[in-house]
């Protein structure tokens, strides 16, 4: 493919700046001009770019055309659930009644907002099988931190102070050990067995009276449902530990399995994955946490509750309630209301109970269809019926082509690459999650491209080593980018390295 079109690189907004240009002309002041008190100025050397409004709009419009998004094409980024976000969500989260409210308003004036939050709490309880839900956490990892904080508070409240160790399988999300580390606990990694389940013998050996609990992602990052999940939970409970569920992969379970029923004690939801809140740069995320009854008293405050039942047909009065042994606030206000709650509420209402079940079933069906089409071309190391995603190896016998080359070459076929080099337990991992969004035509086009690329790896491996060739920029130097941390192409004139 030879593209003769000259590649135009968009300058930065600082390069486009010209002294004196401005987007707004202020009217002459009709009050005496006073100087700003210097002690309140943080700095005087902040050279903001100077541009006309039209230049700013065109700059960002041009940049947006370079972007690849769920709205422009297939985005099978494993573990991220990059599903299509219905546009009705954008309408509802911009309703004036939601937009023009403030978290400090008296509750009587924001009953609609509180009713929506209360309903969302109830729906998430119903979907997950938990007794109570907080909406506060800002995103998934914040939800993990909140959940683990509650687990620690639970043990402490019972005078059980020996527990400092969290068990985390090697097929877990990387945020799990990070969240645990932030709380000063230690992590013990539990290996997977040959079928991609938690190794029960290794788990047994790790279970003792120092275990805070276990953080299990199920389905795990191999896209596999742990075949012994009930035994895993029993082992952890029997040694006095609590079971944390990483709900990042909940999309596969909607309407089929409720983690609370299986025996999990606490779990975070990723509204920005499962319930179509935009993410991947389009955030913010939202990471509500559900807990079983014995942890409900520890939830962050405040929760949205019914303060006063309505009489007859009257609506109840919604307000804020504080759980008895609350771990405190996890966020200054109530969480990501418009960006998260309203969109997720809309999405759940739009689909209904049966629709949510369809989502899980189509997500699983799509992943299995792709796995079936690709397993003869790309080795699938844990080859069994998968859930919402699967992991293949991006390498071929006797070839120096690697997962990264395959991922980059997919960009030439106008597909977003899958997640690569994760999970770490698979060599040259390509982690593929199609989501329920895609139809068979798209799945086939993607499978065809990957099969074609495998062919190219044999006949013309340099095509892969040098890919992508059709994008605005070619192969990036990842090593240089990571070693030379120059994050900005522009620095103030009097900048000196500290």
């Amino acid at each position, binding site marked *: 493919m030879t593209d003769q079109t000259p590649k135009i690189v968009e300058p930065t907004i600082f390069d486009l700046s010209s002294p004196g240009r401005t987007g707004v002309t202020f009217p002459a002041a009709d009050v005496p001009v006073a100087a700003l008190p210097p002690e309140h100025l943080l700095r005087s050397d902040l050279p903001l770019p100077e541009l006309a409004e039209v230049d700013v709009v065109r700059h960002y419009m041009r940049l947006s055309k370079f972007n690849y998004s769920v709205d422009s094409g297939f985005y099978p980024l494993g573990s991220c659930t990059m599903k299509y976000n219905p546009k009705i969500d954008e309408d509802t989260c911009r309703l004036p009644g939601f937009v023009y409210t403030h978290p400090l308003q008296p509750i009587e004036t924001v009953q609609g907002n509180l009713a929506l939050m209360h309903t969302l709490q109830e729906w998430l309880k119903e979907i997950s099988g938990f007794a109570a839900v907080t909406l506060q956490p800002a995103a998934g990892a914040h939800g993990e931190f909140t959940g683990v904080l509650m687990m620690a508070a639970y043990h402490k409240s019972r005078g059980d102070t020996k527990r400092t160790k969290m068990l985390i399988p090697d097929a877990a999300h990387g945020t799990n050990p990070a969240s645990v580390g932030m709380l000063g606990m230690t992590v013990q990694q539990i290996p997977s067995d040959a079928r991609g389940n938690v190794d029960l013998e290794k788990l047994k050996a790790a279970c003792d009276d120092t275990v805070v609990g276990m953080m299990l992602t199920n389905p795990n990052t191999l896209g596999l449902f742990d075949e012994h999940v009930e035994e895993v939970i029993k082992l952890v409970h029997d040694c006095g530990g609590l079971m944390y569920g990483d709900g990042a992969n909940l999309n596969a379970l909607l309407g089929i399995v409720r983690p609370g029923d299986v025996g999990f004690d606490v779990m975070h939801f990723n509204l920005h994955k499962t319930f179509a809140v935009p993410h991947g740069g389009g955030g913010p995320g939202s990471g509500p946490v559900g807990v079983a009854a014995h942890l409900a008293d520890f939830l962050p405050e405040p929760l949205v509750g019914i303060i006063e039942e309505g009489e007859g047909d009257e609506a109840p009065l919604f307000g804020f309630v504080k759980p008895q042994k609350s771990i405190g606030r996890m966020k200054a206000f109530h969480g990501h209301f418009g960006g998260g709650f309203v969109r997720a509420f809309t999405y759940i209402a739009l689909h209904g109970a049966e629709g949510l079940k369809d989502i899980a079933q189509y997500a699983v069906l799509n992943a299995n269809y792709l796995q079936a089409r690709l397993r003869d071309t790309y080795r699938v190391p844990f080859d069994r019926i998968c859930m919402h995603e699967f992991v293949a190896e991006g390498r071929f016998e006797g070839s120096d082509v690697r997962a990264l080359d395959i991922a980059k070459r997919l960009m030439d076929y106008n597909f977003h690459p899958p997640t690569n*080099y*994760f999970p*770490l337990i698979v*060599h040259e991992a390509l982690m593929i999650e199609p989501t329920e969004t895609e139809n068979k035509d798209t799945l086939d086009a993607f499978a065809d491209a990957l099969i074609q690329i495998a062919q190219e790896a044999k006949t013309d491996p340099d095509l892969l080593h040098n890919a992508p060739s059709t994008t605005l920029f070619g192969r990036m130097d*990842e*090593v240089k980018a*990571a*070693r030379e941390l120059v994050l900005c192409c522009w620095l103030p004139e009097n900048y000196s390295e500290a």
Partner: protein
Amino acid sequence: MNAPSNLKYATSDEWFEPASGKVGITDYAQNQLSDIVFVEILVEAGDAVEAGKAIASVESVKASAEILAPATGTVTAINKGLADKPETLNSDPFGEGWMIQIEGGAAGDLMDAAAYSAYCESRAH
């Protein structure tokens, strides 16, 4: 894959030289990680380290990894130059890429070179 016979090896892919007390990561480890872009040694000279506990953190373009002590003892030296030249771990893992030196060390449960080579081979599939 290279595994010098004068060294002992941990299942978590660190090497230990009983004669000198030096510790580093193996050729297999650096190859799996690919280009290493960041090294942070978490212990200082004088610290007591315990086999199996973290002594350093290493990041590559693919992954980050904790480096565990293969022996118990007292740290006598750390390789300060690594922080500025993390690529040394790729180019010379058994030589210039040594990470720390341990004295009075009781080695943990370690393999010899032949056993370690077989162990690496078993993981290639």
